[in-house]
């Protein structure tokens, strides 16, 4: 059990970005992000004993994190119909980034937040540079379908970016 706890903590440390990128994409205020992060870690720990090490850990982790986030999002959306973007937790204050980069990050986060639950999952995996094969396995659709949908979402994002940059 102690070994399980240690290996789980180690794997979480190595893949910490996954939890917060998923949380940040599905929630728009600090309390929800904290609640979702706890829920994802709870679900990961609960299912950890059934994890088959023959498969890639990150694939399994994305499935749990995204499934939890979508379920959580659908539950939270019922109680909060409107969420302002200003509520967003992740404030970009990195001095190393130019103001243009910061603006792009904020726009990208805003656009991802506006996507439908399933499209959002697809886009997160794409931006995380997962292969179409892995995305297809995580989402549960064909590789061709992944490529078609990503193409459409990217086109929408580009249009939105060009509108903002006009």
């Amino acid at each position: 059990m102690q070994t399980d706890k240690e290996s789980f903590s180690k794997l979480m440390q190595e893949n910490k970005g996954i939890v917060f990128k998923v949380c940040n994409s599905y929630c728009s205020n600090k309390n929800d992000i904290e609640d979702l992060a706890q829920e994802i870690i709870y679900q990961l720990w609960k299912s950890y004993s059934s994890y088959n090490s023959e498969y890639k850990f990150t694939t399994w982790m994305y499935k749990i994190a995204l499934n939890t986030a979508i379920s959580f999002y659908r539950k939270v959306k019922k109680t909060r119909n409107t969420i302002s973007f200003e509520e967003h937790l992740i404030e970009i204050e990195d001095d190393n980034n130019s103001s243009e980069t910061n603006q792009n990050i904020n726009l990208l986060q805003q656009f991802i937040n506006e996507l439908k639950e399933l499209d959002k999952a697809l886009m997160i995996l794409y931006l995380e540079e997962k292969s179409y094969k892995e995305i297809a396995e995580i989402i549960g659709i064909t590789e061709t379908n992944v490529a078609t949908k990503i193409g459409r979402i990217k086109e929408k994002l580009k249009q939105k970016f060009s509108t903002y940059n006009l």
Partner: protein
Amino acid sequence: METQELKNAWNASEKNLENLWTLNMRCIEMVQTQKAKSKLNGLAAFKSVAIILGILYVLFLGILVYGNHFKNLYFTFSIGIIMVINIVAIAVYIKHLVLISQINFGESIINAQKKLAELQASTINITRIIWLQLPFWCTWFWSSNWINNNTANFLLTAFPIALFFAVVAVWLFKNISLQNSHKKWFRILFSTTEWTSVIKAIEFINEIDEFKKD
């Protein structure tokens, strides 16, 4: 903005997540020491409450039948049928509860989310079964004495009312289904706030089906 720029912007945001790792560690400690509980078990809680209330209702009906000592066959038969219908509904709820516990978030997103949404929407199927008891609420007070001595009155009032509700109940049983969820009468029937989550679940099932198409 080009694809690589999108990915660069996405990766740049990761730097800002580092300072949230302290929170992540606190969550890990909490779940490992069992101090954290899932907030996503609302569906199971709802079904559990329905099962408990259903059992209490069936027990109450059982007491009524027992208290009548089978003196009036119409009463015994009507309440008996109502009891059976409610027992079936409870059994379906118990089956749902088992299915909820078997949902595996390690499955693909489409599979896990569809199962979850279908279970949420399945409350509609219980409603179909529950409607079947409607005509029997119009027959429990019938008696042989009334039918034999006041036949005309019975045939002109009680019987047509029970027949009408029997037709309504069978029609609803046949037509309340996810396939008819887009129809106007369905939307009106399930328009109250307590059905919002079920209607949203049906919409999500449709969204998943649409998403699966190439």
